[in-house]
Structures are given as C-alpha cells and as structure tokens.
C-alpha cells in the first residue's frame, strides 16, 4: 500500500524532540528561580513590591506556582515521549497497535491532572492578586482543554478498535 508523502511526520518527530529538550530546560529555569535566587528582595524588586505582609504573600504564592510548574515537567515529559513513540509507530507503518491505545489513555489522564493543577494555580492567583498588585496569569480549566481530554479518550478507543480490526485482518487468508 502506498501512502502520499506527508511532511507532518518528520516535522512532528523533530518538533517533539525539541519540545522534550525545552521542557527540561524549563525545569532547570524554574529550579534556578526557586533555589539559586531565593532572595525575597530581588523578587520584590522585579514585581515592584514594597516589603509588607501582602508582598510576602505574593512572593510565597509565586513560589507555590513555581513548585506546581515543576510538578508539570515530568507530566509533560510523559505526554511528549508517548507522542514521540506514537509518531514512531506511524513512521514504521503500523500505528494501530494496542500500545498506542494505552499511550493515548495515559495522555488523557495526564491532561486531566494538568487541568486540576491549572485550577490550583488559578486559585493561588486569585488568593494573592490584589487591586494594587494584580497578577496576570491565565490558568484554570478551559473548555478547549476539556474538549481535548474528551477527544483523546475517544481516540484511545478508536485505536483500541483499530488494533483489534488490524489483528483480524492479519489473521484473514
């Protein structure tokens, strides 16, 4: 069977590899922010805050968001590596395998966890943001995000069914 050439696969392959590296670089950047530069004074200057209980709350809130950001790194790594493995199976010409259905299922669950973490960030932002010092971080569950989760769960089922049909076809003489 011949397939029309598509640039999407090589682009996805390279793009995903770059994203995996960028993800870990982001982890390093957050770690540096959290531990190498713990000076509250610097943070206050960068956020244009004057020392006060409110300012301390904002700084701790920002640190909390950074810690949550750190937790998302391995989650994004899991998503990216699973996508890369799936692209690999498409390149090899056999994407309808049960392993891909399992990968999509994992991705969907991770997306749910990410939505929950986004909700926690949104709550923190709401708690620390004041009219004098508004914190503009858009986080929290979104309709698009929830639709994406639904889509990935459905795709996981499609792949499981596809794998079953493929097995049947291979056993047909």
């Amino acid at each position, binding site marked *: 069977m011949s397939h029309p050439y598509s640039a999407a696969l090589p682009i996805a392959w390279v793009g995903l590899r770059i994203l995996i590296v960028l993800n870990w670089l982001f982890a390093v950047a957050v770690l540096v922010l959290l531990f190498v530069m713990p000076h509250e004074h610097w943070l206050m200057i960068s956020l244009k805050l004057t020392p006060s209980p409110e300012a301390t709350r904002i700084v701790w809130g920002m640190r909390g968001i950074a810690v949550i950001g750190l937790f998302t790194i391995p989650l994004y790594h899991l998503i990216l590596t699973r996508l890369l493995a799936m692209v690999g199976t498409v390149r090899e010409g056999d994407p309808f395998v049960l392993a891909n259905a399992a990968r999509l299922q994992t991705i969907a669950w991770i997306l749910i966890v990410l939505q929950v973490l986004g909700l926690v960030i949104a709550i923190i932002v709401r708690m620390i943001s004041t009219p004098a010092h508004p914190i503009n971080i858009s986080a929290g569950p979104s309709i698009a995000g929830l639709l994406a989760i639904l889509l990935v769960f459905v795709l996981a089922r499609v792949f499981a069914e596809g794998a079953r049909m493929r*097995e*049947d076809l*291979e*056993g*047909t*003489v």
Partner: protein
Amino acid sequence: MAILVKLDDLLHARRMTLTELAERVGITIVNLSILKTGKARAIRFSTLEAICTALACQPGDILEFLPDAAEEAKAA
C-alpha cells in the same frame, strides 16, 4: 476454535502438496499454512472459492463445525 480445517486430509486424498495448491490458488504458502494449521481467524470467500475450484470440492469438505469444541470454548 470450533471450526476444524480439513485441508490436510483433502490434500492427502488429492495427492497434492501445499506448494502445488498455493501455486494453483495464487495464495502464498505461508497463508495456506496458517489456514491448514487452524491458526487463521477468518477466510475470504474468494480464497474458499479458489481452493474449492483447485481441489474440486465443496466448502463443507474443507471446514467442519465441532459443537463440543464450541461448548468448551464458551466454558473456558
């Protein structure tokens, strides 16, 4: 599987080898071997037709349903 493939017996009766049948039917020997050993999950009507033509037989001569095996498979 409760369906028994009796291709071996037929080939023996017709004094034909699997390779000869593969050549006449136009199916790879690997696929015929899968069918002969009962490892196939399905058979196309076109394959059945070609085998029946080559061996001058009816589908019932090639396939047999074993009710006991079906009961065992259900119980398992």
